[in-house]
């Protein structure tokens, strides 16, 4: 749409605003100029009297200008607003109009009122009306007696918790979180091999409770999940426990207010909780992996609902997970790990890194089974208290990794089936080939730093089968 004037001054006012009434004498002064002034009234055609105001009944002009406050004076140049002043502020009005001595007898300044475009109902209507991106998803008209939250359950769209009903208005707002158009096909999602558009991700992000600024993280997570290496089909279909665990790195963590501190793996932070949930809803609704259908997990785990957290990079003694995985420290990324847990690690007594590493190794041996090796992978979330010990001793991540791999290089005789009185274990023929086995592959053990400042604990997030036979940890840059 175009503005009522291409060049000159324009003032947006409304009758239901004291400050607008206050500036009427100023409008009269502006009207005396050679090029005059266009007065746009939001609520009444006859306000202010005698100005022949343009009635912005649909609020399209105000929306186009992005008016948040009345009155606002704009300088329009070649059809675009090039300067503006909201409320009454003499110096500002003088700057915009290029005139001096405006509003003699008025106070220096007076705050304005909220523009009618900002009323919730109007805002939603206008957002929908002016959305540059038409949405193509099927419209589901609910019955007049249907409750929208119940309707989402009844149609099988939820994970068991209530969802925010994905109305067109909410989805339009969500799409403001990305520069990608809604029809952009992000990926093809197994198991149904359905095309997954940005719009479908946005709908599910609305349902999960995300804010628009979280959407880029969700989009990157969906891309990561759809990657061949991550193998979301296998992760969904296995009887094993795992679901997608999301680890977020880079500036995006602070920008969207994620929590990497107290209760980092628990409840309480909207971004942490809803981003992981949005990914799982996409996997369910677009990919088609539903429990009892493709998903045949014996137990499943909360990672199938939501398991997402950021690394505490600022307080970490080490480079971040993203940097280890080849990204720059200023890049925002999300890393997907097919996993579950956490398994707790308690060590409140160690005073040396060697002692603490032994504790970690003892507990890490439990992953999957103490007699299984080279199968599952693990991420250790090291708490600030534990990290301090490594920092003070100058232990890098590789140094800690070497120590643990060395401590978890175990005699084959202890690991084979039958040893220790249990049939579970590694194949007995291994004993003919080698003396020792290492619990984790070199690429199968990772450390990240997060958690509250108090507590001599760390947390092991144990994974599904790693590598090509299962799921490869996948990191994707967040750039939309």
């Amino acid at each position, binding site marked *: 749409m175009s503005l009522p004037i291409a060049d000159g001054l324009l003032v947006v006012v409304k009758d239901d605003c004291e400050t607008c009434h206050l500036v009427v004498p100023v409008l009269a002064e502006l009207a005396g100029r050679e090029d005059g002034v266009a007065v746009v009234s939001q609520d009444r055609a006859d306000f202010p009297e005698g100005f022949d105001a343009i009635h912005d009944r649909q609020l399209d002009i105000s929306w186009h200008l992005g008016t948040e406050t009345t009155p606002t004076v704009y300088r329009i140049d070649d059809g675009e607003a090039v300067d503006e002043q909201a409320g009454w502020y003499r110096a500002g009005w003088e700057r915009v109009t290029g005139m001096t001595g405006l509003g003699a007898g008025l106070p220096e300044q007076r705050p304005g009122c909220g523009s009618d475009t900002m009323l919730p109902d109007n805002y939603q209507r206008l957002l929908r009306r002016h959305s540059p991106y038409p949405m193509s998803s099927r419209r589901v008209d609910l019955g007049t007696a249907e409750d929208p939250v119940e309707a989402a359950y009844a149609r099988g769209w939820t994970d068991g918790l209530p969802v925010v009903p994905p109305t067109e208005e909410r989805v339009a707002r969500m799409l403001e979180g990305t520069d990608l158009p809604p029809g952009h096909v992000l990926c093809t*999602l197994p198991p149904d091999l359905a095309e997954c558009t940005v719009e479908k991700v946005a709908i599910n992000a609305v349902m999960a409770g995300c804010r628009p600024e979280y959407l880029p993280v969700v989009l990157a997570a969906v891309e990561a999940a759809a990657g061949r290496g991550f193998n979301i089909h296998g992760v969904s279909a296995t009887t094993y426990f795992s679901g997608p665990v999301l680890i977020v790195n880079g500036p995006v963590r602070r920008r969207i207010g994620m929590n990497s501190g107290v209760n980092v793996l628990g409840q309480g932070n909207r971004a942490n909780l809803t981003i992981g949930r949005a990914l799982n809803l996409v996997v369910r609704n677009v990919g088609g992996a539903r429990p009892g259908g493709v998903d045949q997990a014996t137990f499943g785990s909360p990672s199938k609902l939501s398991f997402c957290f950021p690394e505490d990079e600022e307080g970490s003694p080490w480079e971040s997970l993203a940097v280890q995985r080849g990204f720059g420290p200023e890049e925002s990324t999300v890393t997907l790990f097919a996993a579950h847990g956490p398994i707790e690690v308690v060590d409140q007594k160690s005073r040396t890194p060697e002692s603490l590493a032994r504790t970690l190794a003892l507990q890490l041996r439990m992953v999957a089974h103490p007699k299984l090796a080279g199968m599952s992978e693990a991420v250790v979330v090291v708490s600030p208290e534990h990290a301090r010990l490594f920092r003070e001793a100058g232990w890098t991540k590789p140094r800690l990794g070497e120590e643990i791999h060395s401590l978890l290089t175990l005699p084959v005789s202890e690991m084979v089936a039958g040893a220790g009185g249990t049939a579970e274990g590694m194949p007995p023929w291994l004993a003919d080939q080698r003396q020792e086995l290492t619990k984790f592959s070199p690429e199968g053990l990772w450390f990240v730093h997060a958690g509250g400042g108090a507590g001599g604990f760390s947390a092991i997030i144990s994974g599904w089968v790693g590598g090509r036979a299962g799921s490869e940890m996948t990191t994707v840059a967040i750039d939309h």
Partner: protein
Amino acid sequence: MTTLLDPTSERTTGERPISARPADLADGTVGLLDISKPRGDVFISRLDELLTEMGVAVRHYRKPTFSKPAPLDLRCQIAAECGAVIEALAD
């Protein structure tokens, strides 16, 4: 009216589906829900005879009043006790 955007890959209909049907009625009890309108009882007792002749187990339920939906307790009881249900007879 509320309109929602379909979050799925749109391979199924937007309306919520009726539940899956059993292959036959022999294995489960069939509930006969009488909505308490006049003459409905005769209709229902004939259905009872026909089902019983087929070897299908039958249980009877009656709404307190035809003018209101059955109480939740009654619906849950039917769901717990029956594999299928016939509601009759509205006019």
